[in-house]
């Protein structure tokens, strides 16, 4: 290999000398020049344009995401191989092409990163671009460390045609193979359209930057020509749409800096792979801290609303809760927190929104979160106060049976430690629709208290609310060594 390279260089040197008579610069200098060119991406003018749009460059983003001086870059000298449409001219070659890839550290822990460079051909995906991404994904999977994608790409590299499209296929395959093996996080920091959207969609978490990022299958122009709908980019695929309406994105942040700093914090909750336990951070919040307000926070009237977030904040370490999908299907609350330093996944019904009932969207939201936690050894703590599933034709026609089943499936399938706290009660009023008041009263007396369940062993204990934190922390300590295996299967068949 090395011999061939030397030979080629010799040939080139001879040719060069023969043609111009001038000596080409020595190799170290050429490396340096290429490196400098790579660091400049698409050049200063395009960098300025990127800044003008309120966006940072691919490299600036990596700088903020990773610990200082921890980035080790791969494939800085890779160039695209397209020769059509004048792409082979030297002015159309950029070392590194339209993506920066490598590995680095976030708070000392290993992460693999790719950051699409909008200044080079609008961040479009060439075959080389895809190859670079695939390389770090393969490494990440082998090593067992998360992949973070910073997406800012106009889509496929048109000049490359199928080469580019095949690149997407390679990435999708790796997204799927890595799923459940290493956490995959996508942060959409610019346009992401067409086939490109499916890579983020296949990853575990998709975050967006407000006002500067878009995700859609087809843009407003195509929508107009096909369905005659008038819609703006923001309405069609902006951060608000995807975090509140479609449920495609898990959270949105104010700007690039805000998003990257939040990503660093989020990363600390995650284990590096499915081979690692949930991380345990240094914690200053005493595990035996009593939470007196829990004794009064839940109203005694079963119909009165309260905020489940108040309960979550009061129980978890230092009131820190990283909520996932905070503005979508708000009748269920999911997110990460820590108990005595250890990452836990929290699922809670939200009585404040639609009485905390379960509907299609909340079931799917809950199920996906539970499956992530189970895949990555993150214990689950569930706060239950649910009146039941939402009735109605809209829900039945929409397939609440099928979607509700996902939540059941996910919980039943999960083998991580699972702790459930029933904060109030359930579905009595639904069974008796107020007609038979006496019967309802009798039923309430009989079942709407913890005794029947506790007497039958369906609940393990009835606890003083103020001791909830202490109890959960103790239980988690014990359950840390929980091991449970499922029968051999290729994979389960969750009702999708």
């Amino acid at each position: 290999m090395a011999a061939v390279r030397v030979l080629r260089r010799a040939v080139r040197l001879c040719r060069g000398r023969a043609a111009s008579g001038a000596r080409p610069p020595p190799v170290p200098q050429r490396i340096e020049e290429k490196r400098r060119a790579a660091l400049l991406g698409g050049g200063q003018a395009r960098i300025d344009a990127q800044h003008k749009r309120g966006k940072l460059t691919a490299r600036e983003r990596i700088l903020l995401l990773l610990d200082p001086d921890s980035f080790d870059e791969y494939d800085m000298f890779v160039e695209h191989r397209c020769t059509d449409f004048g792409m082979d001219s030297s002015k159309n070659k950029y070392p590194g092409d339209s993506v920066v890839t490598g590995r680095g550290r976030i708070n000392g822990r290993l992460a693999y990163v790719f950051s699409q460079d909008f200044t080079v051909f609008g961040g479009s995906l060439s075959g080389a671009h895809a190859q670079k991404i695939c390389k770090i994904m393969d490494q990440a999977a082998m090593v067992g460390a998360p992949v973070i994608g910073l997406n800012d790409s106009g889509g496929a590299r048109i000049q490359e045609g199928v080469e580019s499209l095949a690149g997407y296929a390679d990435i999708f395959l790796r997204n799927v193979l890595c799923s459940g093996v290493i956490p995959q996080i996508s942060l959409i920091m610019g346009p992401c359209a067409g086939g490109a959207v499916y890579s983020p969609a296949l990853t575990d978490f998709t975050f967006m930057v407000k006002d500067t990022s878009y995700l859609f299958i087809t843009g407003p122009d195509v929508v107009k020509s096909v369905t005659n709908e008038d819609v703006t980019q923001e309405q069609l695929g902006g951060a608000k749409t995807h975090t509140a309406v479609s449920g495609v994105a898990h959270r949105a942040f104010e700007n690039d800096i805000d998003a990257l700093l939040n990503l660093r914090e989020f990363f600390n909750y995650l284990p590096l792979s499915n081979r690692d336990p949930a991380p345990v951070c240094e914690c200053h919040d005493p595990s035996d801290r009593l939470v007196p307000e829990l004794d009064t926070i839940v109203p005694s009237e079963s119909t009165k609303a309260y905020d489940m977030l108040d309960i979550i904040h009061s129980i978890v370490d230092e009131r820190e809760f990283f909520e996932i999908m905070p503005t979508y299907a708000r009748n269920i609350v999911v997110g990460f927190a820590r108990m005595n330093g250890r990452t836990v996944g929290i699922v809670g019904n939200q009585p404040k929104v639609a009485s905390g009932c379960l509907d299609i969207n909340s079931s799917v939201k809950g199920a996906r979160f539970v499956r992530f936690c189970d895949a990555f050894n993150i214990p689950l703590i569930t706060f239950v106060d649910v009146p039941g599933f939402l009735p109605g034709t809209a829900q039945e026609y929409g397939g609440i049976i099928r979607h509700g089943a996902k939540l059941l499936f996910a919980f039943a399938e999960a083998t991580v430690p699972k702790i459930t706290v029933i904060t109030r009660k359930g579905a009595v009023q639904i069974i008796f629709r107020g007609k038979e008041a006496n019967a309802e009263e009798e039923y309430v007396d009989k079942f709407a208290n913890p005794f029947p369940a506790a007497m039958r062993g369906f609940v393990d204990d009835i606890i003083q609310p103020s001791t909830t934190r202490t109890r959960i922390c103790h239980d988690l300590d014990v359950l840390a060594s929980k091991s449970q295996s499922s029968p051999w299967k290729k994979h389960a068949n969750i009702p999708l």
Partner: protein
Amino acid sequence: MAVAGFLRWGGRRARLPGWETLCSRWCLITSHKLYSTVYDPNEKTFEKLLIANRGEIACRVIKTCKKMGIKTVAIHSDVDANAVHVKMADEAVCVGPAPTSKSYLNMDAIMEVIRKTRAQAVHPGYGFLSENKEFARRLASEGVTFIGPDTHAIQAMGDKIESKLLAKNAKVNTIPGFDGVVKDADEAVRIAREIGYPVMIKASAGGGGKGMRIAWDDEETREGFRFSSQEAASSFGDDRLLIEKFIDNPRHIEIQVLADKHGNALWLNERECSIQRRNQKVVEEAPSTFLDPETRRAMGEQAVALAKAVKYSSAGTVEFLVDSSKNFYFLEMNTRLQVEHPVTECITGLDLVQEMIRVAKGYPLRHTQADIPINGWAVECRVYAEDPYKSFGLPSIGKLSQYQEPLHVPNVRVDSGIQQGSDISIYYDPMISKLITYGSNRAEALKRMEEALDNYVIRGVAHNISLLREVIIHPRFVQGDISTKFLPEVYPDGFKGHKLTDLERRQLLATAASLYVAEQLRSQRFLGTPRIPIAKSKRSSWELSVHLGDGIYPVAVSKDGSSFSVEVDGMKLNVTSEWNLASPLLSVTIDGTQRTIQRISRNASGETSIQFLGTVYKLQILTKVAAELSKYMPEKAAEDTSSILRSPMPGTVVAVSVKPGDMVSEGQEICVIEAMKMQNSMIAAKTGKVKAVHCKAGDTVGEEDLLVELE
């Protein structure tokens, strides 16, 4: 000295304020240098007492009852079912829904509870039914003892004209003025000229500043007469007015009296209550810096003379206005226990509630005037759930998500009726607690107050700690140069929080930066042995950029063992702390100066708010690199929320009262949303024309849904 007499003053820091701990939080003076407050178990007293009140004063009364061996009955509204006073009492009965007129003022319901629980006596606390003669009369007719003066005294002192006449007859100094009812504007002018301007025209039945006008000349007198009589008629159904000399820039000093049913009466020294906002007291102290022993005795003796003249029994307060030449004038007498009674208890060693109960039971006073000391100095701050940046305090409501009283500070007493998780609701007074500190002298009491305020953790609602702290450290207050106009004089443009000196700003920046670095360092510390080793950062210095107010400050932090060396504005500061990032209170030493700070919030974006010297400051801390890049971040215009009305919660639209093109005025109802079975009136935030209406009656709306737009 006297401190030795205070047993378990302060007590331990309660994590779980069950009622047992609540009781131990505040232990009364049980012995005193000059005499002891004795809770004689053999002295016969009531068996069961009902407290017709809520909140801190109900708790306060229950504490003494427990010491005296009296069983207690609490009353409560339905929203107060979990309130502290309910948990503390032996029995508790709901007397109605949240509005006070239907619960704490609902005499029928309360009388019913008294009958049912067979309570022998009722302590009314302050406010509510405490000065209601009808209530006292109804109790008397059923043979239940009212812990307070006789109906006669309540009535006599409740009427401004009558009380002034009584005072005059008892040779109490009264404000020069006209004591009868003013017939018309002409008579008002004649009287005003006789008295000499400025004059105050006020409603005879009035109170709380209603129906009160100050006039500086004839014209203002005529105008004032008209306004005051209208206001008096509409507010009190009684348009009688009186005119008196207006004392400019007075102090408000009151004398605590204590009288029994045997003709004995004592004065328990004064309380200085001049720091007020909108006629409500904020900071009180005993004794007053202003009174000399002669004036004190003169005021005390006149107060006692008045009490005797109305055959007063129980504890009462005679309020005086004192002018700059130490002339004092009778203002009114409050025939109840005052909010600020603890400062008197601190300096005299008496338990006023116990004395009230004893007197009501018919016992003669145990002390003579010579027994009443002034021991040390006590200061009380009223801690309110209110925003002090808006007219010195507009009520705030919410849930106390975190609450910790500064009981670990020595010589601190906190009278409160709430705990972590309590709701401050719209229905009742937004007072969180009374914070009282005690010292052998004023400077010591004030120093402790400063410390206590810094160590007081209140989260979830706005509070006035910043204002209280500024008042007690203000040079004028420290010198005792105060009047009832203190706040408007000192803060003519409204209260704006603590103004940082250059040094204090550096200290804040250094602390915030150190806290940031401590947090960053901790987030790299994982327990256990990870499969992939964690890259240990060898970093020992950080270049940060801190945004505070209008300024952006470069701050360099370097780690120096367990402390940080911080460079701000070319000045090096050494910051040490335990850096417990979970504790709501953080003790930090900056170049030898100890400060207790509170980190109110933080987020991943580097935004943090820190309570420093009582005031909450918002900061953003970024690394130098991030700060440099932040110039590229788009400026986002905040949505003008005054012209749009969004649904604050998911619910059903019950009614829409406007249509496009309508003119609405600020505060006008625009629509009604029903949510959680509660109707919420949505009002216009400004005056304007309705541009569009996006909802109709019957619609279901989600939180933040646009309802109505104004032009």
